[in-house]
């Protein structure tokens, strides 16, 4: 059974890989993932905002009380090996690259142009085979239009592409109003691949205490449907490969993703739920299914159900929604 695929210009033994997550924070887990058939390892995202906040927060809490009292000119030791920057992330990236044979992909979320560029370079220098730009941005400002959001993202991609030599993937949120067009612009700006989609914290409201609290649920297979649709829609207009992220919990989920147009399949929640070895189970499920249905390679199925090859392209468009509504009858 041929599982070979190509993603971001890198030839991979399989489309299956753990998505950006804390899974790779532990070297032992990373080795298990590799043994379980991961074709690449993606680190969790390096968040510029978090680094900056922790940096300024830590420095502020150290400094704001220092040099204010004759008895205590400081309240914390001056640690020499004290890193507030991305060092831990980069160290882990280096260690991972040494520990596994598959490509290690970094992931980055920036908030400033400078942050995107600096950290992208550092991730490259630390030995990443590729870089995933996690465009994690919530438009909350009513004066900012969708065009501005897209332009800024494109600028970042162009700038990072110029700054580093490794291939870059852009991981998008589903909240773009004209995704196919935007995807093409990303391709034109130099993106080597797209990942659909990242997932946000979903704040819940406590009606009791009148507080909003961010929570993160693991994905479930129902979330895959959104990805399948957009993979299928976006795929025909692009030359660069796509990856699916969010909602793949089984072999058949992975197969459907490939059919919709993904060249790579990222799995996170299922591995967090069942453990890293579950990746092998997914592969086994895929193999069995492919055997049963006489597929020889994953290449055969990549994009087979995209908008351009799907027997009924309207199924992915608005009509789909209409028909379900029409077929719905109250049970009473």
């Amino acid at each position, binding site marked *: 059974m041929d599982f070979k695929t190509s993603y971001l210009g890198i030839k991979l033994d399989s489309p299956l890989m753990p998505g950006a997550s804390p899974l790779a924070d532990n070297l032992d887990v990373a080795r298990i993932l590799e043994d379980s058939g991961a074709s690449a390892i993606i680190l969790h995202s390096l968040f510029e905002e978090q*680094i900056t906040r*922790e940096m300024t927060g830590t420095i502020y809490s150290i400094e704001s*009380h220092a040099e*204010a009292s004759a*008895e205590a000119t400081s309240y914390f*030791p001056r640690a020499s090996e004290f890193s507030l920057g991305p060092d831990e992330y980069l160290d882990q990236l280096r260690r991972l690259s040494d520990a596994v044979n598959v490509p290690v992909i970094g992931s980055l979320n920036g908030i400033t142009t400078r942050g995107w560029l600096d950290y992208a370079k550092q991730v490259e220098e630390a030995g990443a085979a590729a870089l995933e730009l996690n465009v994690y941005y919530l438009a909350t400002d009513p004066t900012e239009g969708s065009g501005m959001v897209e332009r800024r993202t494109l600028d970042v991609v162009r700038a990072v592409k110029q700054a580093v030599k490794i291939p870059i993937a852009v991981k998008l949120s589903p909240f773009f109003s004209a995704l196919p067009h935007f995807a093409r612009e990303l391709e034109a700006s130099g993106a080597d691949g797209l990942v659909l989609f990242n997932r946000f914290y979903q704040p819940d409201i406590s009606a009791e205490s009148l507080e909003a609290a961010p929570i993160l649920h693991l994905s479930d297979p129902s979330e895959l449907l959104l990805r399948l649709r957009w993979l299928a829609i976006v795929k025909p207009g692009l030359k660069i490969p796509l990856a699916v992220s969010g909602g793949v919990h089984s072999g058949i989920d992975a197969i459907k993703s490939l059919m919709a147009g993904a060249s790579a399949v990222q799995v996170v929640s299922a591995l967090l739920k069942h453990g890293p070895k579950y990746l092998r189970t997914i592969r086994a499920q895929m193999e069995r299914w492919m055997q049963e249905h006489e597929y020889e390679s994953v290449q055969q199925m990549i994009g087979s159900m995209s908008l351009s090859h799907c027997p009924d392209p309207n199924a992915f468009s608005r009509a789909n929604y209409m028909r379900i509504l029409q077929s719905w009858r109250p049970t009473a």
Partner: protein
Amino acid sequence: MSDRPKVIFDGNEAAASVAHRASEVIAIYPITPSSTMGELADEWSAAGQKNIWGTVPEVVEMQSEAGAAGAVHGALQAGALSTTFTASQGLLLMIPNMYKIAGELTPFCMHVSARTLATHALSIFGDHSDVMACRQTGFAMLASGSVQEAHDLAAIAHAATLRSRVPFLHFFDGFRTSHELAKIDKLSDDDLRALLDDRQIAEHRKRALSPDRPVLRGSAQNPDVFFQAREASNPYYLACPRIVQEAMNAFAARVGRQYNLFDYAGHPEAERVLVVMGSAAEVAHEAVDWLCSRGHRVGVLKVRLYRPFPVEEFVRALPKTTKSIAVLDRTKEPGAVGEPLYMDVVTALREAREDGLTALDPLVIGGRYGLSSKEFDPAMVVSVFDELSRPKPRRHFTVGIVDDITHLSLDWDRQLDIEPPDVVRAVFFGLGADGTVGANKSSIKIIGEETPDYAQGYFVYDSKKSGAITISHLRFGPRPIKSSYLIKRASFVGCHQAAFLAKFDMLEYAAPGAVFLLNSPYPPDQVWDHLPREVQQTLIEKKLRFFVIDALAVAGATGMKGRINTVMQTCFFAISGVLPRTEAIAAIKKGVQKTYGKKGAAVVQKNFEAIDQTLDNLYEVSIPASVTSNFSMPPIVPDLAPDFVKKVTAVMLAGKGDLLPVSAFPVDGTWPMGTTRWEKRNLAVEVPVWDEVLCIQCNKCVMVCPHAAIRAKVYEPGGLALAPASFKSTEYRGNEWKGSKYTIQVATEDCTGCSLCVMVCPAKDKSNPRHRAIDMLPQAALLEAERSNYDFFLGLPEADRTKVRLDVKGAQFLQPLFEYSGACAGCGETPYVKLLTQLYGDRALIANATGCSSIYGGNLPTTPYCTDSNGRGPAWANSLFEDNAEFGLGMRLAADKHEEQARELLQRDSIPALLRTGLLNANQSTEAGIAEQRARVEELKSLLASDPSPGAARLRLLADSLVTKSVWIVGGDGWAYDIGYGGLDHVMALGRKVNLLVLDTEVYSNTGGQASKATPMGATAKFAVAGKSRPKKDLGMLAMTYGNVYVARVAFGAKDAQTLKAFQEADSFPGTSLIIAYSPCIAHGYDLAQGISQQHLAVETGYWPLYRFDPRRAVNGDSAFKLDSAQPKGDLAAYMHNETRFRMTEQQGPERYRELVNSAKQEIRARFQLYEQLGKGAPAVAVAVKET
């Protein structure tokens, strides 16, 4: 040897740099002002820095200085090269071991930043009273007078002790030298290797205890031999001065700086000579040079080796022409003929003359100066020489103060300024939180390291922990700077906070034509109109150049959040002219890069932006020809303040306490109560504002306020008759006082703006939950109205203590007798102290261990403990750090004894039986019962007033002791877990009725964040740089093993009702009680506004389990232990991640941190299970509860 690097060190770093490189084992304990030496040694060792023999010195923190001295003694006996650092009371605790170390002729050098001993009061500042208390121990004593000397003489002392076998105490002046930044030559490792002789180290090792060639030391000797054996060490003391001189010569040969046992400076044929040691010798040197240049024949003899005192070298060092000598001592020995150096000089001269070593027979007078870092400047030196010129100089005198009682003080010319014009002098006024001192330290580094100029920095801090004012004194000049005194005339004055303009006479420091830089919110064309008349006047009279910048705006625009340090530093360089502008800016940026580069580019970037924007926002203001302001600086305290406050406190508040004469002060350190109320500090930018409609009247805001700046009252509606129009009031909700009115009132001028009250407020507006019953709003607009509202509020009657229901809400109607302390904004300790005073303040004796609580409780100029309308309140005293449990026990013993005597004396016939039995059998378990007893006592007193018998008089004096007293022994974890644990343990074992309140911040907060045994696993602290690897000591569990001690663990922010219950049970418990109180602290490293939610997290995750162990329950067969916490839930790591103390550990080593977190989780789980078992009725230890 020009290749030695020039470095900017303070005296502590200068000494520690040598000591660390010359030692193998270092045992330490934090104490101001020497803590930094230990901290540096620990940091260097933690970072793997090696000593000159290529191994990393082992640094261990002990439980006290006594412990450190014991550890050092053992290390020395086992052949290690060892050192320690200490000061003041800490040095006293080392004395027993110092006798031993000296008696055993052990090479050893300790470094002391000499500090005042506590007498009528504690002082953290510098004088020689501590080191002078060691002059009889057998230690050699070597004195340094400057930062360079502290470095050089440290090396000489380490060398000389090895050769002489006499242990050395090397000392320099606390703060003046220990904390002065100066540019010095750093000795290389090779320098130290050349000075420390390997052969002598080998000898030391050979003398060490070893089972391979055992000897015995520390025998007990008897009348037959002890005396002779003690005299056997004489040759070593006789040889010691010569050895020190040889070490000084060897040092000079290698390094080029020659020191001598006594160094003379001045006219070769001087007639008047000053003898002095420490930093004052440098001041005297400067003054002597100036006097000599004016034709005076004067000189100064600097004493370097004080013990063993070399008589011959001393007289040889004096000019042959000496006619009179003034000896200056920085210590006081009441009752002695004179202070120690004076006595030594007199004796030495007499002996030398009689032995034919000298023909000199000068007049010798002795004076005290500089106690507790009192200023000692060239003008005072001149006044001492003037005294020597008088026909009959005073035999004993003081200088630097005005003594209008015993008239010992010399007058001096306060206008005299001898500093050369080529030295740039700059004074900066800032707030602790604004980074002024840090910026100035950076400026010193820039000038010291980037230019050939010399630099000096000295920093004066005020006594408050919140809103602390800092004054920086900076000098830059072409020669090494000897001026070890504050700047009096500056060419540059920087005011970093506009609010200071109305408070301090800052321009007093400005020399004519000086530059004045003001950080002002007003633009250059408006700022003039916002200056008080006095400031305008001085600007005109002294012809000052005046610059303004809105630094807060620049800092805000560049994301620096109130940190105006970089902005103001840039301004200083831009207009002071000490460096060319572009060069200066490049240097500032380099400095920023150096400070933050490693930690984070983002911070560097923000600073760079701030620097770049500064120059565009800096303006020179043209000064009008005449004063136009229509307002003056307001009086420091209002006119209705008590006389003492107006005459003494106000002067201290104005920063002019130096002017107060001796007669202004009580003779024994006794101080009046409740003076903080006269110091309106107006620290808060935003203050709480109450919405009486939304409020549910829970009083939680009052409970959590660290400064008693938000209060609740319930009162009769008639009380509102004269209320100001803006005074808020609403119907009281509650059955107990139906028809009454209720008000929450904020002390707007006393609030620090910590916003804990807002965070705890449960009442949210349903349509706009962002609005609560308390919101923070800008203070300025509210000030005027709220000032009168608060005054009116204070005039409303206090709650009737006998009627208040003592739950969380009710207790907060009780008047706090601890208000507006100088504790940090958001302090987690003070809510407990305040609660204590609300519940028991009118009958409490408080013994307070030294630490934060003794500083915000008792540091002048103003103190927070106050009295109620009956004049009753907590009687508070601080003894020491280590003895607080014993100190409080003594109070209990006295109270009990007096009560017992009163009860005995009540048996007099003249007392009506009813009154007697009432007094003897009073039930004082309630406020009503206490009120009744007080009434009986009053009745008794008036009855006794007409009884002339001596017994009646005695009973009258003791009558008040019949009202039950509540003794509270309060302190931090440093006291309870470490230095005072022995006493605490003994007091618990005795079981007397005292309440021990441990304000547990899990770190030595007051001295700056050193680890204690209360520090939790995973937390970074000084002396646990990499994060503590062992769990916190379970003090409560230890106490419970006694079985008859009441123990509670509380966290007011997590469960206030449980805290209150614990206080009530502790007070009612007829034996010893111990309350361990979780206290959020700035040393934890987070915004303390989140202190309440952190406490919730601490309890929820099991980090801080709540419980009460009440032996009374065991009497009924129940378990004494009651767990008040639910099963741990939530993520401990999340709690930890909120605090810098844990994050720093993570940032140093994520892998190790994860292991520590896992161990901490396991530890917490296991401990919780243990507590659960205890709560499930594990058989209680049989207890005998003493009924009193």
